[in-house]
């Protein structure tokens, strides 16, 4: 082999620097003492402490690894035997399998995910570890097959024939002749399968259920707020991989050494060295057996874990809430206090929650927003609340009761509430400018210096209110006018349509203006004191998120206890301190506003203002129109 020159070495180093740079940054900042992800303020292990305490993450690490290993082993096996079988089968079968095999590779993940979600639901599978594993096998095997099959085709078809002519059984021919030649291909396929499985988010999210999460799902949910615990998690994953790699390097070495010793001993005792290939394949087999044993062990362990946390004697409650929308300690304290098990899952948006409900996933308690409550009631997903069971109901703030979406609160108990407004940098935007209302977002002095919220309803709300229309309008002319407003804003102001990343961006002070939810504003203002918040005079979206009980809920007593628990003053206080959104408990709101959020007006959204409205449920046609227009706004 030629020695590589200076430039090739440099090139390799540069490439690896590029691959590893983000990982290195993540690991470094996992030791940061502050929340900042761009300034290193000092060494600390606090995020690791938080990580270890967080059983959710530790379970996710376990799920990710076991699923990846099992899916890799099974899909490699399945893919390899299929590849060998294919090269000998009839053309029609071969073509059929290869065509079907391409479908999961060709389809975007989200389509495959929805397809499987529908399949599992219609087959009545209990969603969780098994469905996730099946799905992972489902998308890993095609990759193994496409990697191994070309190698099989390159084989001389007479090889196996020759082996059998020489007296080998088909199985022996396979094991001793064909598989050793295919080994590099199989290894490459297995590596690809592991990678795909370990990194998957979209498919896992849709096919899982009952609280089974992998690392991606947890990481996705944690991204809503700056939470450096995810950096600690990355560092942990790096460490786990390093350990696995070290084992992979060490185990063959140790066994090789042992082999050598054994062989030397055999030689010394005069029995002869034995046939090399025979020894080799035995060695190979042993390794496979060891791998299989490990997998079996893990499988049993998983079953044990599932059995323990599963349908034992303790009562269970399946709660589905938005991400980062509860203090997790409160959940575990409730479990202890009431001797029950909470299966807690999170969603990114009301619509994502609805998609899962629609596919037949079952939960006991949901935390949707106003307009979604209206829809769920209409579509008969909810059961009425028995208010007599809620001893703390009197704590609720009367100003958030009886909103139009559920006028008598028959089905819904307020959880957090707020409005939508403009967050501005006090050093850049003068207070006189605020009188422009929503049209401040059209002021060319701030062109290129603002974030809009990437959600069609919220953006159309801004435009409709700026034009003086109702945000619940179904009049197509008004909607078109709002569309023109948004297009003009896009062309003149060059805004960035951000999601939850607006939170980190505004804390870092990247831009002067942003459309945000009041609760997020309160949280951001705690971290960056240069910011102010205001709700324009033209009116805004006043919203409320509720706790509701589904029709699927059997243990309604426990469900009511759970809701009542979150109406308790001490619990609600800790919850609002953690989340930053405005509590629906009056005394708690007053206390938090005076102490924790002193001087932060975003924590107390205005109430009873005439121009403010609550989002109503939109029917399909209007929703489609909004989506289409919003796509046109975004695709420049």
């Amino acid at each position: 082999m030629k020695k590589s020159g200076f430039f090739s070495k440099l090139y390799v180093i540069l490439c690896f620097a590029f691959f590893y740079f983000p990982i290195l940054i993540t690991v470094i900042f996992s030791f940061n003492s502050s929340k900042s992800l761009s300034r290193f303020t000092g060494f600390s292990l606090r995020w690791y402490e938080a990580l270890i305490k967080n059983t959710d993450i530790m379970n996710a690490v376990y799920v990710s690894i076991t699923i990846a290993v099992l899916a890799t082993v099974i899909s490699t096996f399945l893919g390899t035997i299929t590849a060998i079988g294919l090269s000998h089968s009839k053309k029609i079968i071969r073509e059929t399998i290869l065509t079907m095999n391409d479908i999961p590779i060709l389809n975007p993940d989200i389509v495959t995910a929805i397809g499987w979600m529908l399949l599992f639901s219609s087959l009545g599978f209990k969603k969780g570890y098994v469905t996730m594993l099946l799905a992972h096998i489902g998308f890993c095997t095609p990759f193994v097959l496409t990697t191994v099959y070309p190698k099989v085709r390159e084989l001389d078809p007479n090889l196996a024939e020759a082996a059998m002519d020489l007296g080998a059984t088909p199985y022996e021919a396979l094991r001793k002749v064909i598989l050793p030649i295919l080994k590099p291909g199989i290894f490459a396929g297995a590596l690809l399968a592991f990678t795909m499985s370990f990194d998957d988010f979209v498919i896992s999210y849709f096919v899982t259920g009952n609280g089974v999460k992998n690392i991606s799902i947890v990481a996705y949910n944690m991204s809503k707020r700056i939470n450096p615990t995810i950096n600690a998690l990355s560092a942990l994953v790096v460490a786990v991989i390093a350990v696995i790699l070290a084992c992979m390097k060490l185990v063959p070495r140790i066994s090789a050494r042992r082999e050598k010793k054994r062989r030397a001993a055999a030689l010394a005792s005069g029995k002869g060295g034995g046939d090399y290939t025979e020894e080799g394949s035995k060695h190979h087999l042993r390794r496979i057996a060891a791998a299989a044993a490990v997998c079996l062990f893990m499988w049993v362990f998983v079953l044990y874990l599932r059995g323990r946390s599963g349908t034992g004697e303790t009562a269970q409650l399946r709660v589905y809430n938005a991400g980062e929308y509860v203090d997790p300690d409160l959940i575990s304290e409730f479990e202890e206090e009431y001797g029950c098990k909470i299966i807690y899952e999170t969603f990114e948006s009301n619509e994502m929650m609805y998609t899962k409900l629609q596919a037949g996933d079952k939960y006991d308690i949901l935390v949707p927003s106003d307009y979604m409550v209206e829809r769920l009631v209409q579509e008969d997903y909810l059961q009425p609340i028995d208010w007599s069971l809620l001893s703390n109901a009197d704590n609720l703030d009367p100003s958030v009761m009886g909103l139009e979406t559920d006028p008598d609160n028959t089905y819904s108990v307020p959880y957090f509430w707020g409005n939508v407004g403009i967050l501005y940098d006090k050093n850049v935007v003068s207070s006189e400018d605020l009188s422009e209302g929503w049209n401040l977002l059209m002021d060319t002095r701030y062109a290129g210096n603002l974030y809009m919220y990437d959600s069609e309803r919220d953006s159309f709300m801004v435009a409709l209110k700026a034009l003086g229309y109702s945000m619940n309008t179904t009049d197509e002319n008004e909607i078109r006018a709002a569309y023109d407003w948004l297009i003009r804003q896009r062309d003149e102001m060059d805004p960035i349509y951000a999601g939850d990343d607006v939170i980190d961006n505004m804390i870092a002070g990247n831009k002067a203006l942003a459309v945000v939810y009041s609760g997020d504003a309160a949280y951001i203002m705690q971290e960056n004191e240069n910011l102010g918040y205001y709700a324009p005079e033209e009116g805004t979206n006043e919203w409320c998120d509720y706790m509701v009980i589904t029709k699927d809920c059997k243990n309604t007593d426990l469900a009511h206890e759970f809701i009542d628990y979150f109406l308790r003053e001490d619990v609600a206080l800790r919850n609002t301190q953690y989340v930053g959104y405005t509590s629906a408990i009056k005394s708690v709101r007053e206390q938090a506003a005076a102490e924790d959020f002193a001087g932060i007006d975003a924590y107390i959204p205005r109430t009873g203002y005439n121009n403010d409205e609550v989002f109503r449920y939109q029917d399909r046609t209007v929703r489609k129109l909004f989506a289409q227009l919003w796509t046109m706004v975004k695709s420049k």
Partner: protein
Amino acid sequence: MKHFRRLSTPYLIWCLLFILVPFVLIFLYAFTTTGNPVRTLHFTLSNFAKINDPAYIKVFVKSLGLGALTTAICLVLGYPLAYIISRQEEARQNALIMAVTVPTWINMLLRTYAWMNLLSDNGIINGFLKFLGIDPVTMMYTSFSVIIGMICNFMPFMVISIHTSLEKMDYSLIEAAMDLGATPAQTFTKVILRLSMPGVLNGVVIVFLMAISSFMIPKLLGGGQYMLIGNLIEQQFISVGDWNFGSAVSLILAVIILLLMRLMKKMDVQREDG
């Protein structure tokens, strides 16, 4: 060779259940109107007609363009790396290929968050530039940030794929070509590149597919204005709940991809013939 034929039967059954059935469902959705396609069949082509709208066509063009650009950059940067690796001793090759693979095991989302912190206006890179006395540069929410994120995530797949076919190449062929008077450029195009073509094509397909259907990277690094096909499909399935249109979009995407793959296969065959 009838002996091994039966080996593919389990997967055939698997495919029918886990691939064909969901695919038929998607297919049904694409050709029907609202509601459950199994209970009420109302066939229509309106879902496909809807795509003939400037906004959606823009989304398609942008995605395909970005996918092609990302793939081209991955190929140009990844090929030399794969080649250099393939010329090392075997143990070293394995170690290096492992080193290329490992970053892909760190969650894609986690790596993307890291890029967000690196590239943001007050981020680490701009902090460093400020330290050097250079004016900060806007990198987040641009094509630049999206492409950087995609390359960082997808290039390893290109490298691994090319390396697989370079690895088994007989290097005496190169020496033979040189001995026969070929220039290095000729040796590269006529011998090395041609022999590694299967790996290149495989890598191109994998990276291109990932690039045009990914929706998390454009969403996080490009912002909402970076609407690609993946985002469009996600939007239709999740926020609008229009599964019919979402299915139609993904079917069209699949057809485009199939056509492109056919085209590439043809190119490959022509190469072998010519």
